C-alpha cells in the first residue's frame, strides 16, 4: 500500500449505530398522508394566489372555489357517475384486452428471433401513432359501435405493454435463465417459470405506461361514438373545450387526475409487493 495509498490523516470519526425507533401504525399512516395534504394545500394556495393577483379574468382562469363548486355540482348528478362509469368500463375492457394482446405479442417478439427482427422495431412506430389516425380504420372495422372505441384504446395501450415486457425479458439476468435451462425448463416453461417472473418489475412498469396510453386514447376515442346522453368523460372534456368552459374543464381535469392517482396506488401496491418479495425494499437509498 506504501506511499501511493498513504492514508490521508483524518481525525478519528465515531460511527455510532443505535436502535431504529419504532413507530405506531397510526403515526405511520399520518406520515404517509400529510405530505400529500400539504402538496394539495400548496397547489391550491398557489392557484388561488394567481387568481387573486388578477393575472387573468376569472372566466379564463377560475379560482379553486368556483371549480370545486362546479365539481360538487357535477358530483350531485347521477348522470355524472353514469358517465364516469361508462368511461371506466370502456377503459377496463380495452385495457384488459390490451394487456392480453400486449403480453402475447411481447412474449412472441421476445422469444421468436425472426419475429423480433421482423416487427420488433414496429412497436415504437405503433406507439407513436396518434389515436386520431386510427379513427377511420376503427370505423371501417367496427362501424359506429363501442368496439371502435375499444379498438383505439387497444392500439394505444398494447404496444406500451408489449414494450415493457420485451424490455424486461431483454434485461433478465442470464444466470437465472441458465439456472432454468439446467433445471430442464425449455421453451414456454422457461418463460413461465423463469423469464416472466424475472421480467415482472419491468412488465408492471409497462402496464402502468399502458394504462396512461389507454386512458389518453380513450379520451380521444370517446368522441368517435357519441351514443347517448350519458356523457362519458371524454365527451365531457371535449364539450368543455368546445364551450370554452374553463370551470368545467378544470373540474374534469381534477376528476381525471384523481382517477389516475387511484389507479397508480393499485400499481404501486403491486410494485411494492414485488419489491418485498425480491428483497428490494428497506434498503433506503
Amino acid at each position, binding site marked *: 500500500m506504501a506511499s501511493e495509498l498513504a492514508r490521508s490523516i483524518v481525525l478519528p470519526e465515531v460511527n455510532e449505530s443505535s436502535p431504529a425507533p419504532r413507530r405506531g401504525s397510526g403515526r405511520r399512516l399520518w406520515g404517509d398522508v400529510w405530505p400529500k395534504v400539504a402538496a394539495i394545500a400548496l397547489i391550491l394556495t398557489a392557484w388561488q394566489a394567481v387568481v387573486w393577483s388578477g393575472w387573468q379574468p376569472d*372566466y379564463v382562469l377560475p379560482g379553486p372555489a368556483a371549480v370545486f363548486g362546479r365539481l360538487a355540482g357535477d358530483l350531485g348528478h347521477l348522470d355524472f357517475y353514469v358517465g364516469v362509469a361508462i368511461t371506466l368500463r370502456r377503459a377496463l375492457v380495452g385495457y384488459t384486452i390490451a394487456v392480453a394482446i400486449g403480453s402475447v405479442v411481447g412474449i412472441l417478439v421476445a422469444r421468436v428471433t425472426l419475429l423480433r427482427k421482423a416487427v420488433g422495431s414496429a412497436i415504437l412506430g405503433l406507439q407513436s401513432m396518434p389515436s386520431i389516425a386510427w*379513427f377511420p380504420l376503427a*370505423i371501417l372495422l367496427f362501424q359506429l359501435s363501442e368496439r371502435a372505441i375499444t379498438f383505439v384504446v387497444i392500439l394505444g395501450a398494447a404496444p406500451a405493454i408489449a414494450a415493457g415486457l420485451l424490455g424486461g425479458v431483454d434485461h433478465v439476468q442470464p444466470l437465472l435463465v441458465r439456472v432454468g435451462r439446467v433445471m430442464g425448463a425449455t421453451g414456454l416453461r422457461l418463460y413461465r417459470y423463469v423469464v416472466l417472473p424475472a421480467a415482472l418489475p419491468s412488465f408492471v412498469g409497462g402496464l402502468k405506461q399502458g394504462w396512461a396510453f389507454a386512458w389518453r386514447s380513450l379520451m380521444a376515442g370517446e*368522441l368517435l361514438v*357519441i*351514443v347517448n346522453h350519458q356523457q362519458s368523460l371524454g*365527451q365531457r372534456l371535449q364539450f368543455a373545450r*368546445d*364551450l*370554452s368552459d374553463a370551470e368545467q374543464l378544470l373540474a374534469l381535469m381534477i376528476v381525471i387526475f384523481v382517477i389516475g392517482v387511484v389507479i397508480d396506488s393499485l400499481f404501486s401496491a403491486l410494485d411494492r409487493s414485488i419489491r418485498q418479495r425480491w428483497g428490494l425494499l428497506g434498503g433506503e437509498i
Partner: protein
Amino acid sequence: GSAAAGSPSDDGPMALRLGYFPNLTHAPALAGLDKGFFAGALGSGVTLETHTFNAGGDAVTAILSNSIDAAFVGPNPTVNAYTQSHGKAVRVIAGATSGGALLVVKPSIKSVADLKGKKIADPQLGATQDVALRWFLKSHGFKADTAGGGDVGVLPQENSQTLTAFKQGQIDGAWVPEPWASRLIIEGGAKILLDERDVWPQGRFVTTNLIVRTDFLQGHPKRIKALLEGLYQAVTYLNSNPTEAQALTNDTVAQITGKKLASGVVSAAWSHLAFTIDPLAPTLKASADHAHSVGLLPSADLKGLYELGLLNQVLVAHQQPVVSGL
C-alpha cells in the same frame, strides 16, 4: 357605442391579431387577407398577424386569454365566448357568411316523413346544426332525445367521420355545413332533403361572424373601423366575382390544408352560401332560443353582444343600409 373618440394609442404602430378557419364558410376572411383588403385598409402602421384555428373552442380560448384580438367564428363559439365571460370579453362587430347548412339524405328518403326510424348525423351536440336539426324534427312532430333514441336517431359526430359513415351506410343522412353537405352529395351520392335557408325568413341565417375583444374594440376603434372597411371590400369582392372568388378561396384553403377541394364541391357549396356583412343578429338569437327550448343549453341573455356602430359608419360611408343588433 363609445367608439367615437380614439385613444392616443390608437394612432401609433401596432399589431392586430386576427383568427380564422381555413374553410369555405370563412371566405370573407380568406379573400380579405389574400387580396390585401385588410392590409390596405389598416395601413402600414398596423401589422396584421393571423392565426388559423381548427376548432371554435380553441379560437374562443385564444380570444378570452388575450392571445388574439379578433376572430371569425360561428354563432356557437360566439355565444360561448359571450356567456362564459359573463358578457364581458367579446363583441360581434360584423357578419361574414350566411347559409350553407343542409340536410342531405340517402336517395331512398323522399320526404320528411321518411325520416322516421332513420339515423341522422350532425357535427356536435349543441352546435348550430344540431339545434337546427332537433328544432326541425320537433316542429315536424318527431321525437328525438339526446340519447340517440326516439323517432329519429340524432348522432352528433365529427364531419369527416360523417362522410365515411355515410358512404358505408351506417347513417342515413346528415345535417351538416358546407363543404360537407356538397361532399356528401358529390362523393357520397346523397341528395338534399332540406336547405336550412328554407326554414329562415328571407333565407338568411348567420354562419360566420366577426368577433373582437371588448378591450380592443374600446382601445382601437379606428383600427377596427379600418378592419371593417377591409371586410366590406372583401364581401363585395366575393359577391361580384364569384368564379374568381371560388378559385381563390379553394387555393387559399389548399395552401393551409394541403389539399384542394374538388372544384365541383366548391361551386356546389358556393351556391348554398351567401356573403353578407350583416351579422343577422336575430337569427343568432333565434338559434340560441331554439337550443334552450330543445333542452340543450341554458337560456342566454345576449343583449350586449352586438356592437355595430362602427360597421354602420362604414356602411353609411358606402351608402349602404345600416344593420341592427338585438
